[in-house]
């Protein structure tokens, strides 16, 4: 994040403005990715009119960064009507898509509407791997073609590479592909639980050795020495700080109008079909609770030797049952980076108690996806351009 963007975020935080929102337009999708957390049936998506009204409300509330995601956004026939409305309300719009339905005409419209960036999921440079993950033959070719078209129209394209057991060796290839296309490369090494709380999908996460290798790869992690530096615990003065942007300057809205602190923090906080967006943002008891938590309120993490260097996600912690607790996946990541296991991880290993595979929390429909914060936000997970 540039100095100016950071300054604006700090100002928004002070003023209580939801600067950044991810709005999922649909959970329907034309791909069936093995790691996807979604129920792809339509359980009553917001109508075009409802979404336009929501966009008006969000503009009024001060939302600037708007990420439109899904499911597959182009599955909605009214997608361009929605996008047009969003741009008329002068949002800075980012799109997330698999690109399969994107052709010349769509690329031209996306460009003409002044979209800031388009993120396309690419799991591998090899069709046999990518298409096996999406369970859609030909999908890699179509996603790459979409990225090429968008680049030809001068758009900022991001290739997003989710790391899992199926594609653990392929991130070099995707990075090279991104370079060839003139696109940005972004890796997400975390598979998150399914929308109904089922954690069995976590088995797709790469093991600690593979994670360590990725974290020590300069091409992905940037400055490895800095990224994998020995852990540091919080100083006394850090304890008043906030864990991340979720519920502070950012939130997530599902296709059914449910509001959550973040796409990766499935704490139901209200529904825009019943309550005005601004009222939820200001008055929701759940968002207020999230906002009340400082680093000092987290009994384990505030005392952890990794506290200051950890990328702990409160949403993942919530999905483990305690939003003030540690996130096991981040304990693992801290270990992979530094080679030093935190006490929480040591205790878990000693107790030999694997995390239960059943639901730990009952949650409503939602879709975990990459962080809603603007890229390179100070509290984002990535240490360098390439890695979250």
């Amino acid at each position: 994040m540039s100095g100016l963007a950071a300054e604006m975020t700090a100002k928004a935080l002070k003023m209580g403005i939801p600067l950044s929102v991810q709005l999922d337009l649909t959970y329907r999708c034309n791909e069936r990715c093995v790691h996807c957390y979604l129920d792809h049936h339509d359980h009553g998506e917001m109508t075009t009119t409802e979404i336009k009204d929501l966009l008006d409300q969000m503009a009024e509330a001060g939302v600037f960064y708007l990420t439109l995601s899904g499911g597959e956004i182009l599955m909605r026939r009214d997608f361009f009507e929605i996008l047009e409305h969003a741009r008329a309300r002068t949002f800075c719009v980012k799109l997330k898509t698999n690109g399969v339905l994107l052709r010349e005409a769509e690329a031209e419209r996306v460009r003409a509407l002044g979209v800031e960036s388009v993120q396309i999921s690419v799991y591998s440079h090899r069709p046999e791997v990518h298409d096996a993950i999406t369970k859609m033959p030909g999908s890699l070719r179509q996603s790459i073609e979409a990225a090429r078209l968008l680049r030809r129209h001068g758009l900022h394209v991001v290739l997003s590479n989710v790391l899992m057991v199926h594609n653990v060796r392929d991130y070099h290839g995707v990075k090279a592909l991104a370079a060839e296309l003139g696109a940005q490369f972004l890796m997400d090494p975390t598979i998150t639980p399914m929308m109904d709380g089922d954690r069995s999908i976590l088995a797709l996460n790469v093991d600690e050795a593979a994670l360590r290798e990725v974290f020590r790869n300069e091409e992905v992690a940037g400055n490895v020495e800095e990224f994998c530096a020995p852990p540091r615990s919080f100083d006394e003065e850090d304890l008043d700080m906030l864990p991340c942007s979720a519920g502070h300057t950012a939130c997530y809205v599902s296709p059914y109008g449910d509001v959550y602190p973040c796409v990766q923090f499935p704490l139901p906080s209200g529904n825009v079909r019943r309550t005005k967006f601004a009222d939820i943002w200001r008055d929701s008891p759940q968002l207020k609770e999230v906002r009340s938590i400082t680093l000092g309120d987290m009994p384990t993490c505030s005392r952890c030797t990794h506290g200051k260097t950890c990328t702990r996600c409160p949403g993942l912690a919530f999905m483990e049952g305690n939003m003030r607790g540690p996130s096991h996946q981040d304990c693992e990541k801290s270990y992979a980076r530094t080679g030093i296991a935190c006490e929480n991880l040591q205790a878990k290993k000693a107790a030999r108690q694997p995390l239960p595979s059943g639901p730990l929390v009952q949650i409503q429909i939602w879709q975990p996806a990459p962080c809603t914060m603007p890229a390179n936000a100070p509290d984002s997970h990535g240490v360098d351009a390439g890695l979250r």
Partner: protein
Amino acid sequence: MTRPRYVARSTAIAARALGEETMVMSATNSMLFTLDEIASVIWESADGVTPLEQIVADKICTQYDVTLDVALQDAEALVKGLAEHGILLLSDEPLAFSGRSHKETP
């Protein structure tokens, strides 16, 4: 053009008021700008049909302790700078309305 008479917001921008300031991002290169209170007033009034001089006289000189000459000189420098980044359009003739203000109610 030495004296821009009409100014209009480009449609190739993202913009939002943040308190008295305005964040503006160019859609062509993602460059982010913040406009201070006075610049925000000009931005809000840049409808393509109100002459810059009138905007300055009506919206700046009535609110701030500044002469029209001085304020207009500053405003011209500001709009030329923003035009160089493609976020404002300048013309000697009235411009068709380019985009809706982010402060307008729907």
